């Protein structure tokens, strides 16, 4: 009993850690897509940010400078996406794919050139990372059954960015549904012509949206390389950008449902890690490959069957052309 409760708490604890980048990316995608800009380059921006953050942390030893570098690189790529899609009315998917390829290749090439470790960055000391934050009295309440364990293992002991991710969700909701900017953001994704005739700049609104998207993917990348891990590893995002995109669509472009989807995907991932090598009654040892594939299989199943009718913002993916 005691054992399985601890197992549950630890699984949930892992869930929080693995869903953090998903949450950042899902909210990032939400801002972008609500404004009408399809963003499949969440993956690439996150990867580039992870590399930038790890590199800067390795060179300067400052986690905060690393964070700034990660965000700056991601925002830069977001602006590139905006330049292609908004200014030059390019195809959103093509631009996104280009950014993903660019990020994947460039991080390896620069990594090898700068650090000579086959694309990996040097291992970071704790001072150059975001380390777990112990809540006050975390050790003291350890004796308290259930609540004490939850407090110590689940709530306390994460790094700063995990907490930021969980605060970003209500903040996103508040911005999208309770501010003037949010109203305009939702409007421009539905009917840019209406926004234009209301005397607002469609381009400027969309640029602000993709920049917010860049900011959040930058946080996600930074989290991966200097908070969750201690260095950059080539292609370390491993498709999480796409999973986050799926989660956002699964949540029908709304913050809290998207957040829920991120947690589901995170949980699957955490369970997959925990179940490796475990004997399941009647089946025996579950093959590692199957466990690892589980989140992706479920993603396909969820997206194919259980999402219902996902109504995207009406003007999504369409460049805004002025016309009569």
């Amino acid at each position, binding site marked *: 009993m005691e054992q399985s409760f601890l197992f549950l708490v630890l699984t949930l604890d892992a869930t929080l850690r693995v869903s953090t980048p998903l949450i950042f990316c899902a909210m990032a995608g939400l801002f972008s897509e609500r404004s009408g800009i399809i963003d499949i380059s969440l993956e690439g921006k996150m990867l580039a940010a992870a590399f930038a953050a790890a590199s800067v942390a390795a060179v300067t030893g400052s986690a905060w400078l690393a964070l700034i570098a990660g965000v700056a690189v991601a925002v830069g790529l977001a602006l590139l996406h905006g330049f292609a899609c908004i200014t030059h009315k390019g195809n959103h998917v093509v631009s996104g794919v280009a950014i993903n390829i660019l990020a994947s290749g460039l991080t390896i090439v620069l990594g090898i050139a700068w650090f000579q470790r086959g694309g990996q960055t040097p291992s970071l000391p704790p001072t150059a990372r975001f380390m777990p934050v112990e809540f006050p009295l975390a050790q003291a309440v350890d004796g308290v059954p259930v609540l004490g364990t939850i407090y110590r293992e689940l709530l306390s002991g994460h790094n700063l960015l995990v907490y930021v991710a969980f605060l970003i969700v209500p903040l996103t909701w508040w911005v999208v*549904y*309770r*501010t*003037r*900017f*949010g*109203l*305009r953001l*939702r*409007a421009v994704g*539905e*009917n840019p*012509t*209406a*926004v*234009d*005739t*209301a*005397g*607002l700049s469609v381009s400027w609104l969309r640029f602000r949206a993709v920049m917010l998207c860049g900011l959040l993917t930058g946080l996600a990348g930074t989290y991966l390389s200097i908070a969750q891990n201690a260095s950059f590893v080539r292609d370390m995002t491993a498709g999480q950008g796409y999973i986050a995109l799926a989660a956002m669509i699964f949540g029908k472009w709304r913050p809290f449902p998207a957040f829920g989807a991120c947690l589901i995907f995170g949980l699957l991932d955490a369970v997959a890690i925990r179940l490796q090598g475990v004997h399941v009654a009647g089946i025996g040892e579950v093959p590692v490959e199957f466990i690892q594939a589980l989140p992706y299989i479920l993603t396909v199943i969820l997206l194919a069957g259980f999402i219902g009718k996902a109504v995207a913002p*009406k003007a999504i993916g369409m460049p805004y052309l*002025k016309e*009569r």
Partner: protein
Amino acid sequence: MVNPVTDRSTVLPQAEKASPAVLPAAIQLTRICKSFGPVRANHNVNITIAAGSIHGIIGENGAGKSTLMSILYGFYETDSGLIEVDGKPVTITSPQAAIAVGIGMVHQHFMLIDTFTVLENIILGAETSTLLNPGLAEARIKLQKLEDEYGLNVDLDAMIGELPVGEQQRVEILKALYRNARILILDEPTGVLTPQETTQLFRILRALNREGVTIVLITHKLKEIMAITDTVSVMRAGEMVAHRKTEATDAEELAELMVGRKVFGTIDRGTAACGEPLLKVTGLRVDSDGAVPLLDDISFQVRAGEIVGIAGVSGNGQSELLEVLSGIRGFDAGEIMLNGRQVSPDHLCDPKAVRGLKTAHVPEDRHRLGMVTRFSAQESSILGYQDSAVYNRGPFFDLSRIKAECRRLMDGFDVRPRHPEILSANMSGGNQQKLILAREIDKDPEILLVGQPTRGVDIGAIEFIHRQLVELRNRGTAVLMVSVELDEVMKLSDRILVMFGGRIVAEVAGPDADEKTLGLMMANAHGCTPAPADTHA
């Protein structure tokens, strides 16, 4: 006439007569030019719109009305010319600038966001605070005052997508008033309205006008110009060709000015010589995702040699009916007899088979279903019949034959320009429609299904198309016509069916139809009971 040569009358001899003495004109345009590449959309356009008047601008599609209004609303910049508002020269480079000088616009396609409430739509772009709620509360107070003042009743918390179009239009008007517009431009405002909604709109416009709002009405409907305007300007081929006081002119003169030649208003239809029923529909039903079926319990027949018109506000199932009959869409219950062949939900007939039954289809949306706009005219002219032996030689197209046939169709239906190689997209709406009609009618169909035969088609071509339809009927074809233009339905039909909410709610004999009754039926003012068979006149 007496003509003291004042400063402006030298430039605008005709417009000057219309403006009253003291107030400066609400809008004065002088020598406005605007070209798109080689196309002169507006050329030396002069117009004076008197403050406090209702001014109509009439012209065919493509005459340059919309371009002119887009210039006034800051969508386009002029190549040259002067814009004055309330006597002061202004440059309008953006909608924002237009709003600032007091111009409001109700666009033909509403600029509304379906998933927003009325209130959110109205304040969009004119929010008074960074946070949403205080701004919404403030706007609510101001809007309630406006609603009371002008008798514009709209539920501010309703979702736009759930409102009927007439009400959506009122939201657009409120939107302009909320931005303190004193000059209101309406672009083809009645295209989507029932006659009753049109009457109501005009009542609102008159009320606004009494409160001092200057109203500019852009339309191609002569009747509306005559009904509501004080003064009218006529545009043709990018130029202003005449300015008149409405009371000093009549519909015939305006039509002639618009088209540039005499237009004959009536068509001699002769009497219907009806034969056997060729198209028979019994108990047709098409289910939807929701609870209410798209089409329900549709029964009617069309005999050889008659035109049956289907009237109704768009979106009441007419499009779906045409799609079912032409084989594009399946159905869930009922039976169709199509030229002797029985079609049921289990034995559907695909569009090719439908064509094989000598049934031709001129679709409602010609750009989506009627042609491929990126194809040349000759390619568009064989769509649906591309497998016919006429156009093929062995496994290949007989291109010279296709071109010759296309030229023959163009000659027969007066399609201009007479270039089979021209891109379909580069032909005007009227000529595209004539080409499609030519393609379908040329095959001597026994049944013709035609949707919106003259949507976006100018007056001259409308008349031609109407003649072709009547001629076809006189040759013994069964014609089923769906149209949102009530005038057209009344003018051409031997019998009229009225659709509402996916059902046929009434049937009227063509000669007995009057606009008011039909309008009430279209709005289903009598409650939705499908017409029993004995209402046949």
